[in-house]
């Protein structure tokens, strides 16, 4: 049986977090293989990204370091953040669409008057 707690601990280490950051900046390979990722490599990469996002939030002060004390805290915060971001995105797109509709109707109105 795969030990997910251990996999998460590994993904959270400064070594893999730094490596992930470097790979993003320098377009380096994260694993020895660049393609044909195995199922466990994909799961691991997801956890590395997951922790990268939490560490970013901690560093910009969105959340305190306490979030990293427990897996349940980490998962709960990520779930909450995800829901909040989706809501903000939805509101943003709705607002943009309304603004665009507004603009379009004005443009149409102007065109019709011509």
């Amino acid at each position, binding site marked *: 049986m795969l030990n997910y707690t251990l996999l998460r601990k590994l993904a959270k280490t400064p070594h893999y977090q730094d490596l992930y950051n470097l790979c993003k900046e320098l377009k380096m390979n994260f694993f020895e293989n660049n393609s044909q990722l195995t199922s466990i490599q994909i799961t691991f990469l997801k956890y590395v990204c997951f922790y990268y996002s939490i560490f970013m939030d901690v560093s910009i002060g969105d959340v305190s370091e306490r979030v990293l004390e427990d897996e349940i805290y980490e998962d*709960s915060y990520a779930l909450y953040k995800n829901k909040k971001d989706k809501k903000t995105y939805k509101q943003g797109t709705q607002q943009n669409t309304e603004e665009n509709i507004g603009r379009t109707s004005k443009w149409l109105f102007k065109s019709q008057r011509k």
Partner: protein
Amino acid sequence: MTEETKAEAAMSKMKELLDMNDLENIIQSNEQTFDLDEVTYRLKKPTYKQRQEAYKKRIEKYTEFLKDKSYLLEEDLKKLYLERGLDTDEILKMIKNKGDRRNSIMLQLGEAIAHNAPDNELETLKEEIKLLNDEIQQLSIKRTVLFDTSLEQQVMIHTISYLTYLITEKKEGENWVRAWNTYDEFENAPEKLINHTTYYVTLMSGTPDF
């Protein structure tokens, strides 16, 4: 902390480091090499051709088992359990309800963490989530055990075994050759070797649903 508990803690930490080292080795590439009884074995992520071959075998097995009346489909098992007073759909419903309840508490906890709520508030919510997680796990295990003998599950086990047989290689001199010439040979291999190789295959492929 007594000397004994200190030693136990050190041992447990050491074991964790060793396990972590093993895990790190597994994730570094899509190829695994290990030695067993003085033979070096290698497994690589299955190629498209190997996956296709395993898929064909899966269909073959499914058809074969369908003709055999001793294998029951999940749907048939469900009906049988219901006759005996065990509603497996009810277990699924319970898992879903507990999952929804858990997620809702997780959202509360997430918000509480983001807004720097006091420790005791976080701790209470955490304990509620833990409890629900345990209950969900117990129910999931119960359901998995109930359907362990189903035709679908047996086909899945066979597919994983067949994939293991297809992709395992052993070193002979400087060359890598197939570890087993026939599936029968694989089935008669030492249990330790089968367990070891099958474990790697599941880590590489996850559930082979193609």
